[in-house]
């Protein structure tokens, strides 16, 4: 029993990890904590749903369509909201991205109503028996997909010129400009990638959960995962995501249902109590 709970937790954790990695990438590249990240996810997943169920298009067309939508959404958000706000104080960015979150929720409610929808499973089939535990093929599919997506992101950032340029830009903007790296192009690219990561997360999450306009709240779970892992560290975000996923799958068995919602926050406080910078976080050096 515990084994199948852990596998389910890993599946949910994969989604948290994708959300957290996207958030961290945006913070590192443009300094913006994207409170609309979960709503990027929500609305892109609705787009996938419409293409798949309402227009009855094949799976891959729906996925590619939703990813393309998410990429464009990310770029538009960067161009219209982030680029102006990032030169100002952090509070401006917070309110700007929160504003985007409400706008996207509003649009989604108009287009798809407040109802909940059943999203078809991508990995159907019988439960796999391992010992006494039975594991859903959906969970296994989600875990493998997430690993593939994160690996692709890692390879892109480390082995391609543009990916390395993005990392260079996050480390020293002036120097990157002096290399001839077009800063605005890279910002745009990173928000397109952020959108794509969010859309992937939503498409993997939706079959396990019902699809609704309220699912954007996952932003906060993602932020908590990122902080637990050591804010600003992508590997940390992945670890934080999986840790949160497993614990919020296993612990509810032992505690009253009403307390489920506080698991992430308790874990957050525990980790920060032991290591204030998070699991992989470096010591912050404040420059005077």
């Amino acid at each position, binding site marked *: 029993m515990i084994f199948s709970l852990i596998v389910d937790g890993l599946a949910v954790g994969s989604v948290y990890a994708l959300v957290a990695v996207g958030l961290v990438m945006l913070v590192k590249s443009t300094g913006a904590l994207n409170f609309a990240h979960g709503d990027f996810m929500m609305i892109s997943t609705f787009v996938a749903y419409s293409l798949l169920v309402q227009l009855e298009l094949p799976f891959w067309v729906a996925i590619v369509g939703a990813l393309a939508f998410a990429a464009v959404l990310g770029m538009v958000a960067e161009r219209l909201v982030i680029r102006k706000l990032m030169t100002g104080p952090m509070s401006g960015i917070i309110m700007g991205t929160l504003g985007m979150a409400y706008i996207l929720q509003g649009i989604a409610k108009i287009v798809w109503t407040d109802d909940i929808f059943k999203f078809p499973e991508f990995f159907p089939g019988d439960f796999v028996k391992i010992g006494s535990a039975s594991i859903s093929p959906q969970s296994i599919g989600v875990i493998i997909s997430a690993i593939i997506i994160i690996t692709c992101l890692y390879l892109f950032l480390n082995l391609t010129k543009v990916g390395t340029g993005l990392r260079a830009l996050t480390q020293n903007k002036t120097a990157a400009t002096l*290399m001839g790296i077009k800063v605005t192009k890279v910002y745009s690219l990173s928000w397109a990638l952020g959108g794509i990561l969010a859309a992937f997360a939503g498409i993997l999450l939706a079959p396990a959960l019902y699809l609704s306009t309220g699912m954007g709240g996952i932003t906060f779970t993602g932020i908590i995962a990122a902080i637990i892992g050591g804010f600003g560290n992508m590997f940390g975000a992945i670890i934080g995501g999986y840790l949160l996923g497993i614990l919020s799958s296993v612990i509810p068995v032992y505690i009253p249902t009403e307390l489920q919602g506080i698991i992430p926050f308790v874990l957050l406080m525990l980790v920060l109590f032991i290591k204030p910078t998070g699991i992989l976080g470096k010591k912050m050096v404040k420059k005077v």
Partner: protein
Amino acid sequence: MLKLNNITCSYGKVLALDDVSIHVEKGALVSILGANGAGKSSCLKAISRLLKLQAGQLLFQGNDITKSTPEQAVHNGIIQVPEGRMIFPDLTVTENLTMGAYCRKDKKEIQNDLEKMNSYFPILKDRRRQIASTLSGGEQQMLAIARGLMARPKILLLDEPSLGLAPVIVEDIFSFLLELKQAGTTILLVEQNAFMALQIADYAYVLETGKVTLEGQGKELLENERVRESYLGIKKSK
């Protein structure tokens, strides 16, 4: 090759450059001297197009580049090695070097140039897989210069390459710059270390609070009383 004609720039209300004219001939090594805040770095920022001009004109190889962007400056072959080195701390040495060639498309030649940098600075070859922040100050300066050269500069702008380095290493770096010059690279060098800069310069400008107050050949300025007193710390002997 590079001409700054009567350039004026400011940060907000603070005037950084006031009617400055500087010329750099092809193949020459030109130095800009001056105290902290005299406007030396602003000059290079203006040339790299990081700083907007309020008045004046920038000419590079006969073309007006006054309105071009920082990326266009790099594409034109104007490459700056910034003050404080500004290497990418979490990238490896090799990644830092390849970033220098970001605007180039000739993959084979880039590979050759990587080899060339390794022969210029063998220490960088030994450390090629290391994260750049683990290098010593001198090694970081070598990396910053090598990264600049990876762009195949038509003119190399260097901002205080001696800053914070031990005298022995400063000498290494200056003799390397001299070699570069002799190999045909055009160099514009900004320095507080006036003695070193004047020794290798063909021509030099002295900036004081945003104005050019003195200019001449490197050797001439080394003998100039005012330069000796203000920048070399040598009192006039009776």
